[in-house]
């Protein structure tokens, strides 16, 4: 207590000075409308700039949540687009009888985040934070907001390993947009932004910059998901087919939020494939 009193006495001049300055300022800003208005304007400018900085920081921190929300919304919209496309085909008579009611909701999306990723090796894989407990199973396609990026290889309980498009052993069925000519998308192990579409018939007309999309022939990807754009043709030994050089839509060095595609008809289609296999085996045994 004595120390406190000594302190107050020692610095009493400063306290007195501060007291009179504060009283003067109160008188000044309370009773002079001009100074008051300038004070309020300046205070508003300062507070608004501070709030602006705070808003920038919080909005930056909140980007992850916003991104996830956008991904979810994007997935819903993609789903809706695919449904509408199928509806359109149904009414145009292209799909016809094969498009039953279930086809409306054939594909579903599971949001996931890439845990680790590589683009340096000839056989690249990446991991995602969703496993079979979240509904992820081997054979499911994986896409990001730009296009296809891989196919699930192994599914653990909470994580899964995905074979990247940048894997020389994994081809993907694709087609030229606006045509019904299919080809196999393969990566040659060098540039992570370039892949090749092989087995395109030689007579097919294509344009530089034409889009390559998924063919929809597998249960992994629905038809129409972007893969890349045609850069040109590559010389091959095969006279009947050409190989197209393709710039991939996805940036494989920067994968973060992805979607795993779940085909609801996959079980049915796999069962049908088993029957086909069994028939072929029986036939070969008889022979």
């Amino acid at each position, binding site marked *: 207590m004595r120390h406190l009193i000594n302190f107050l006495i020692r610095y*009493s001049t400063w306290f*007195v000075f501060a007291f*009179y300055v504060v*009283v*003067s300022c109160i*008188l*000044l800003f309370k*009773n*002079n409308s001009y*100074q008051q208005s300038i004070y309020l304007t300046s205070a508003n400018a300062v507070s608004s700039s501070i709030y602006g900085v705070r808003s920038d920081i919080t909005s930056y921190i909140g980007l992850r949540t916003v991104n996830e929300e956008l991904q979810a919304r994007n997935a819903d919209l993609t789903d809706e687009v695919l449904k509408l496309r199928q509806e359109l085909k149904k009414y145009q008579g292209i799909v016809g009888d094969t498009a039953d009611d279930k086809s409306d909701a054939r594909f579903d999306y599971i949001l996931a985040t890439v845990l680790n990723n590589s683009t340096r090796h000839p056989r690249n894989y990446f991991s995602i934070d969703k496993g079979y407990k979240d509904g992820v199973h081997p054979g499911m396609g994986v896409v990001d907001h730009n296009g296809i990026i891989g196919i699930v290889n192994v599914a653990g309980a909470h994580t899964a390993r995905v074979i990247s498009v940048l894997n020389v052993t994994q081809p993907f069925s694709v087609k030229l947009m606006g045509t019904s000519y299919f080809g196999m998308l393969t990566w040659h192990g060098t540039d992570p932004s370039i892949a090749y579409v092989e087995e395109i018939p030689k007579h097919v007309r294509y344009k530089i910059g034409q889009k390559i999309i998924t063919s929809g022939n597998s249960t992994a990807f629905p038809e129409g998901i972007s893969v890349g754009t045609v850069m040109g043709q590559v010389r091959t030994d095969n006279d009947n087919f050409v190989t197209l050089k393709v710039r991939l839509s996805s940036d494989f060095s920067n994968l973060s939020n992805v979607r795993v595609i779940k085909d609801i008809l996959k079980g049915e289609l796999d069962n049908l494939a088993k029957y086909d296999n069994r028939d072929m085996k029986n036939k070969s045994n008889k022979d």
Partner: protein
Amino acid sequence: MNKTTIHIATLFITMLLLQTLIFNHVVLFHVAVPVVFIYFIIRMSTGLSQNVLLTLSFLLGLCVDIFSDTPGVNALCCTILAGVKKSVFYLYVQRDDNNKDIIPSISRLGILDYSKYLLTMTAIYCVLTFSVEYFSLASFKDIVIAAVSSTILSFILMLGLDSLIITPRAKRL
């Protein structure tokens, strides 16, 4: 009531009346305003307690504010001026036992040192008071013109006032 108190009270009232009744109504060339009442703060003895000086300065400023209808402006500037008074004084006068308790005047400090001290104090006050009045850096040019012209005018007036006031002959520093 001792002599010093009477001297302070007389100077306080005189300066207040001079400022409010005469100098508040003078504006030279539409820019220069004489601020003579701060002579009270400038003339206060260096031996006077800082707390007393601050209180008297605040009260003087407040009184001038009441008469000038500028609440807080002069009170704030007078308080700050009283706060820096000692530091300014010892900028020009050597700090020793002889001048621990002296009343600053021409006769005590000599015309040169006193002028420097008076000019600095007046300039500080004028800059402060016009800055508070304009309260905006957009009016920087106006503040400078008003502060410089008022400082010169006030300095001349206070220098004249000091030579009029009879100070007991004392040993010059």
